[in-house]
């Protein structure tokens, strides 16, 4: 089969052969790379939108971006970062790593794997094309609250709905594939409690995806019928309920934010032990903590809705449940610290990003705990304090997690070591810029600046200027990241098979770069105690 495909390719024009190779590939490593490159591209697209927003927010007054366009890039920044940058990056990592970590030859459903990737470029073309349409792109925020998005949405909202449907189908197929792979293709002897944590966190994430992506599909379909087929799910005038939209959206939305962080937990749990030269502390409690965070995520969606007029009893329940999440999250942070404790630490770039992840994610977790306190939430809600909170969780969490993973596994993928000096420069500038951008947002939020405004009153001016400078710097540092990645792929010091002295796991038993097909015969897993 493989030989046949290759003979066919040699007869084609090289460009066609190249296109065919990537278009029809069913290889988990190639699909993983496609996911990662797409997410990298979209990360820059959405990042550029953020930089435009920060340009407008540099000073009070309207200078560069009018309110209508501001709302459009605000919406697309969120949607593209969530569905285009973070989620595909994690799926790309899953594709590359899960088969190699569990000793499988490939993903269980390789053709579906191809399909779930190739839907995405079309989904994002649909979504981003709305920027060039009459009436402009969706302008109602990534949370697309009805009726702003239904009755009052621009015509391009339908493209957004279709785009979200496609992304949802892609995610559901990706998640099914990951679950089937993990359940069925583990090498003999690789019991569940021997799986690396990255595999565990992705297994749990995949279940979250299967649970909530259909709910997202449901809510956008309800929007579609409200807009075009005369229903009134979310229209008060027709007997519908705008708050129902928020309940459905956040039933998807809260697990979604954990979808964007759990694989990051997995990555940190792989990297920290390697550079501490010490086993992960509390493997079992890490698994249980991840599972409890995932379960709790289904009962806390109301904490996004405290100001919608929820009854007291519901507010109390959601507040307690949300505060409870701090317990398993705390366990994870303590376990990472305990893993480092009395290890033999070195600080290569992946370790720096992993430590940055733990520390700054913890800051985001702290503000999350504060936001759970309903009385205080009445003051925090919909201010820049919330913007600071979720960017602290997402940037140093999801994005730094992904970058740590890229530095950590890139030598395995392409066979070359990255430039350590440039990697460190990247880490330190990105860390400085993240804090410069997002820390002052705590202050502007507490001082009373609402989120999602293109213009603000004078007392917020100085901290906004700091945030804007930070944001541009942050954008620039990621160009450096792109340069480092390309440089590493093109050449560099040859990586050893184990790459990192302290690295453990099946992927490090493979040659660097990992050949196209690995573990065609299942590896032998040492019998003995589970982790």
């Amino acid at each position, binding site marked *: 089969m493989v030989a046949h495909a290759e003979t066919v390719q040699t007869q084609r024009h090289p460009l066609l052969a190249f296109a065919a190779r990537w278009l029809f590939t069913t290889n988990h490593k190639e699909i993983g790379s496609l996911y990662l490159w797409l997410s990298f591209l979209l990360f820059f697209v959405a990042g550029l939108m953020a930089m435009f927003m920060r340009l407008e927010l540099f000073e*009070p*007054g309207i*200078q560069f971006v*009018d309110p*209508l366009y501001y*709302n459009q890039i605000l919406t697309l920044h969120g949607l593209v970062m969530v569905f285009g940058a973070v989620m595909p990056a994690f799926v790309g990592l899953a594709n590359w790593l899960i088969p190699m970590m569990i000793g499988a030859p490939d993903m269980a459903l390789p053709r579906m794997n191809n399909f779930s990737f190739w839907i995405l470029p079309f989904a994002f073309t649909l979504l981003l094309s709305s920027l060039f349409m*009459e*009436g*402009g792109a969706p302008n*109602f925020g990534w949370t697309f609250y009805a009726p*702003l998005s239904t*009755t*009052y949405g621009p015509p391009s909202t339908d493209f957004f709905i279709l785009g979200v449907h496609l992304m949802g189908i892609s995610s559901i197929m990706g998640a099914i594939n990951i679950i089937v792979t993990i359940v069925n293709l583990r090498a003999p002897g690789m019991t569940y409690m021997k799986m690396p944590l990255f595999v565990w966190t992705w297994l749990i994430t995949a279940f979250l995806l299967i649970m909530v992506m259909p709910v997202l599909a449901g809510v956008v379909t309800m929007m579609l019928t409200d807009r075009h087929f005369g229903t009134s799910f979310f229209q*008060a*005038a027709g007997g519908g309920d*705008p708050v129902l939209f928020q309940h459905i959206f956040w039933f998807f939305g809260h697990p979604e934010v954990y979808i964007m962080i759990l694989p990051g937990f997995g990555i940190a749990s792989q990297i920290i032990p390697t550079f501490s030269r*010490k*086993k992960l*502390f*509390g*493997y079992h409690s890490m698994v249980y903590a991840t599972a409890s965070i995932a379960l709790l995520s289904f009962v806390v969606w109301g904490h996004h809705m405290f100001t*919608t*007029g929820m009854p*007291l009893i519901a507010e109390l329940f959601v*507040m307690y449940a949300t505060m409870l999440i*701090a317990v398993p999250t705390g*366990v994870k942070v*303590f376990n990472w*610290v*305990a893993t*480092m*404790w*009395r*290890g*033999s*630490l*070195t600080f290569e770039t992946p370790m720096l990003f992993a*430590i940055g992840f*733990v520390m700054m994610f*913890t800051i985001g977790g702290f503000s999350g*705990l*504060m936001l759970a*306190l*309903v*009385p*205080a939430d*009445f*003051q925090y*809600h*919909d201010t820049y304090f919330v913007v600071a909170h979720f960017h602290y969780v997402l940037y140093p969490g999801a994005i730094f997690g992904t970058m740590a993973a890229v530095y950590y596994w890139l030598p395995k993928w392409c066979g070359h070591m990255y430039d350590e000096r440039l990697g460190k420069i990247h880490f330190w500038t990105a860390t400085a810029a993240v804090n410069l951008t997002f820390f002052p947002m705590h*202050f502007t939020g*507490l*001082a*009373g600046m609402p989120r999602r*405004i293109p*213009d*603000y*009153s*004078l007392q917020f001016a100085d*901290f906004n200027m700091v945030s804007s400078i930070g944001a541009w710097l942050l954008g620039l540092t990621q160009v450096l990241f792109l340069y480092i990645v390309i440089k590493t792929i093109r050449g560099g010091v040859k990586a050893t098979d184990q790459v990192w002295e302290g690295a453990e796991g099946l992927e490090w038993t493979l040659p660097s770069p990992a050949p196209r097909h690995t573990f065609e015969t299942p590896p032998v897993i040492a019998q003995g105690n589970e982790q």
Partner: protein
Amino acid sequence: MTSYAGGLKSGLMIPIFWGVPNISLAAKVDMRPGVTDMSVRIQQIHHMGLWVCIIVGIIVFSAMFYTMFAHRRSKNPTPATFSDSTLIEFIWTLIPVLILVGMAIPATSTLRDIEDNEDSDLTVLITASQWKWHYQYLDSGISYYSNIATPQEQIDNLEPKDEHYLLDADNPLVLPTDKKIRFLTTADDVIHSWWVPDFAVKQDAIPGFINEAWTRIPVPGIYRGQCAELCGIGHAYMPIVVEVRPGEEFDAWIEDQRIAAELAGEAAVAARAKTWAMDELVTIGQEVFFKHCATCHERDGMGQGTKYPALAGSAIAVGAIADHLNRVMNGKADTEMQAWAPQLSDLEIAAVITYERNSWGNDTGDIIQPITVYEAR
């Protein structure tokens, strides 16, 4: 800085965290205590949460920095081998639970008081629409709209921005001191959120719903806030200004409003009786247009794409007067173009239509009189 809080409570802005001596800096980096009992309690809960986080953060981060320093390879070449400890894991699960319970208790009791909307002395129905607030005093029948008062020139950087840039309203909400005031919030179009930080009241205004909140304000003064829920292109331009007056002054103000309403009625009758000249109407019309219409249709009448159509040369603005009148008075369903009949006087509607039909190259020469609008109502 303190101006945001009306300059009245700077004495209350005790810089509780970081021991910052500069009052204005504390107000810039911390949640304000506000002026009501409830806002002070809420700030205390905020500080409780903040301090718990700071202390836990110091412990965790110190441990991390210590281990990074003391257990780096050059100092600790041989790593330890432990990877489990049920006792330690039990302890660091239990301690957070205890801390959380300790935080939940005051939060719960405060929340119960926040949600106690009973026994109010005065009720104000707040109806939000794009992008203004409508205040109705249910006890005395007074009602009016409150719009942003910051001139467009300041937003466009053509004039220096004044102290209350974007936080100035033409008609502030006037409230009495020391009364339990109940707010009912709802909306006509999309979801908005009525927020005054100094009262710690933030309540979504949702079409089809009526939400409740309350406050009791001990200190007279002017308090400012903004819409807190994304509601379209004018979201940043929906300020809330509340003027709090002592009891008798408030009662006097209510009486003044009654008289003003009567006078406005008489003025409307007089306006109808008069035949207005083109230039008079265009002058008034331009003012009305800039204030209410230009957010979407722009001052040059060119609109913003198809979503907010141009009025220069538009079929309605140069077509039949009856259609134009109908569109302005009754709006267009399911768009931001709302019905202006309830919001504007006969004269204002006549003037703005006359202005639109005779500006930006529209040269119909039509003059619409207030009596025409009156008859169309």
